[in-house]
């Protein structure tokens, strides 16, 4: 199964010696990248920065895809917010001035979805980061041992696909 290895790696990363902050930052950045439109220069710039910042790439890629699926549900709230912000005097002037600088027009700031998504993503970055970090730490310290020793997992192991997944997780976890 093609998806077993990536999923196993994610599970291993969740339960490995990877820094919880790197995983949490990857999730928060993925949320930001999912909120802003991708056909401009801001998106690739933020993406490259996230790569340089030693975030967990696996989590980042997976959560970008996951959040992209749900952002159309959030758009009706983000877009009006961005449009109101874009119409306000200082931001409006700033956007016009920025667009006058050669090349910066391709950053796509004159877009309600871009401004709204960027603002919402930045504001949400910190709470999403801490929430993700809390969940990861909680998972590693409390949930992971309980899940590993639970009868449910022992029963689930009998399913062929999940058995393969668990074997893959073991294979990758032996690295540590």
């Amino acid at each position, binding site marked *: 199964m093609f998806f077993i290895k990536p999923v196993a790696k994610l599970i291993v990363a969740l*339960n*490995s*010696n*990877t*820094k*919880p902050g790197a995983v949490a930052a990857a999730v928060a950045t993925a949320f930001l990248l999912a909120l802003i*439109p991708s056909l401009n220069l801001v998106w690739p710039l933020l993406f490259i920065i996230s*790569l*340089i910042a*030693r975030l967990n790439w696996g989590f980042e890629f997976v959560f970008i895809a996951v959040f992209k699926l749900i*952002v*159309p549900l959030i*758009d009706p709230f983000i*877009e009006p917010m*961005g*449009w109101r912000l*874009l*119409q306000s005097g200082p931001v*409006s002037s700033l*956007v*016009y001035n920025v*667009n*006058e600088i*050669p*090349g910066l*027009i*391709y950053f796509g700031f*004159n*877009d*309600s*979805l*871009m401004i709204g998504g960027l603002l919402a993503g930045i504001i949400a970055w910190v709470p999403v980061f801490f929430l993700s970090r809390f969940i990861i730490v909680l998972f*590693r*310290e409390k949930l992971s*041992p309980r899940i590993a020793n639970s009868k449910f997992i022992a029963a689930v192991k009998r399913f062929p696909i999940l058995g393969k997944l668990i074997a893959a997780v073991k294979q990758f976890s*032996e*690295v*540590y």
Partner: protein
Amino acid sequence: MSKKITKAPGIFGKPVKKKKWDKKFLRKVYLPEDRKFLSSLAVEKDDMISVDADGLSKKDLKRLKAIGKAIKKNRKGLNFILIFILILLVAGSAFFHFYLKNKLVQRVVENQLENIFLAEVDTAGVNLSIFGGHFSMNLLVIANTEEPMTNLVEFTTVEADIDTAELLQGRVLIEELGFSGMRRGTPRTTSGKLKNDADTGKAAERVEAEDDPSSSGAVENMVGQISALAGNIDVAEIYEQQKENLKSFRLIEESKSSVEGWKTHWQGKTDEWSSRVDDWDASVKYIASVDADSFSDIAGAQSTITKLQSIYQSAETDYKRIQSDYQEAEEQYDEAAALMDEIRSAVDADYAYIESIVTLPAGDKVDWAASILEEQLSMPLKKYLSYLERGLEWYNRFKRYTDKKDAGKSEVRRPSRQLPVPADAPPAFTLVHAFASGEEPGLSYKFDLRNIVSEPDKWDGKASLDLGIDAPSTGAASAMITEDSLEVDVPAVPFDLGDSLSAVDIASFRGSLSVASAVGWDEGRFKGNVELGATDLQLKEAVSDSIVYRLISTSLESVNPLTAAGEFAWTEPDGLSLKLDTELDESLGDAAKALISEGAEEGLAMLKEYLGDQLAGPLDGFESEYGDLEGLVRGIKNYQTDIDGYKDMAKDKIAEIENSVKDKLKSEAENVIKDGASDALKNIGNKLNF
């Protein structure tokens, strides 16, 4: 033999200070179990921490090695993998710039143009200089979707200069876009049809439908009717059909029958009088033999006179009879002459009737022919205007393509809003100047397009397209298209319709066409007027002695040069509609009338000749009978004269005898007077008293 001591992995090989142990080792382990495991192996000695791996099982030793690796990894400040990826990106960008960029642009250009033209598009030597703002191609070939084995157009070079500063401001300013070495209709070695292109098939079907003249049935009908009107008259058939309506034949028969009866009657009479005249020979000889002076006595004279008086009475009787016959014969002869006149009148009437059958139809009978032929002859004009239609089709096809593309975009994109572009900002798209030029044998042309702007109110220049065609043999033609009008001026462009007019017996039709046209347009509707002039028309006959060909050629000769004024309109659903007003209406009608008249005259002459032949026999027969009757009447008259002569002859002879007797008596009386006396005179008197 001493026991082998198991050493800890390299990262744990040297003792470290407790502070460093906590910061650089334990804090870099994020799993509590691993941290607990590592802490259990730590041994503190002299404020230094070392890892004791001696006695660890293989599994624990492996776990320790993994923890060491994780600590090393978590300590790293730089992500070398990322640096490697960045290097790859830079190298990839360079590779893209020097190798892939132009191939990608080439593919994009070909795909986009194929979507617009629905045919294969080939390019070569594509070069895009992003920083220099220059784009060039060494070859651009667009296949003809309707004729896949030929190219619609071909350019040897395409060059564009784009303002990069404007491009960085998000605006496209094409300063110069040039297409040179243009050629049309060049052959292809491979088919230019796109694979799985249903639209192409439809387009081909549409063109075939356009080429099929819908009025071919009407033309055939017209040809048949013109031929029937103006030529190939079957006089025998017309005579047989109309014989019942011809009065002269019947009248001749009836008259001839009457005259024949009269002739028989008078033939008998003539014979009778001939015999009678013969009988008179003896009497005539007797009268001639009588000598009035030969009588010796009165009695002899008296006896002869009595006989002559009898002959005279007989002559008188015959004369009265023959005079009566002659009067009767003359009356019948007059009657026959009246019949002759009546026959002549009937023949004249029949000729007039025949003439009325083949005489010229009313003018409106040829109007339909004029309109159908005008439709055929306006084909070169329509062909010219079809270029406009085709151009508009291309425009609409392009518009549909861009609209569809825009619609597709809005479906994919998440809806958003943008601040309006400042009023003083330059237009988003500006094409300052585009040109194309090309040459064909005997023909060169150029296109000059200026000031195509997305927001025209923000640009000083007016949009225009200047088309120029220069043919050394015919002169230059031009067209100027502005935002709301089109003006075309074509002094003379040769055209050759080939055998497309074979339906009207024209094997080839060529000449020169001049066009002056003005077109205006609003939303989706184009309309305008056109003035056309066709000169140097050369026609070739497809069928020898074709009436229709003569009709057309005569008509065209009479209106040379042929001019036409028309109005046309074009909408996408209805296509091109053209209403032409040409001199052909009148000239063709006149020519048709003249030809039909000519044909009718020929036909009439033939018919009259045929009718004359048919009438000749009966007329000759009648005239012969009539002549015979006339001869008989004359004969009777001669006999009448003869008998009248006989009568006079007898009368004269009687008078001659009487005079002779008187003279003799007078002479004797004079002698007696001279010799005697009155007795003697008495005796003589007694003697004279018979």
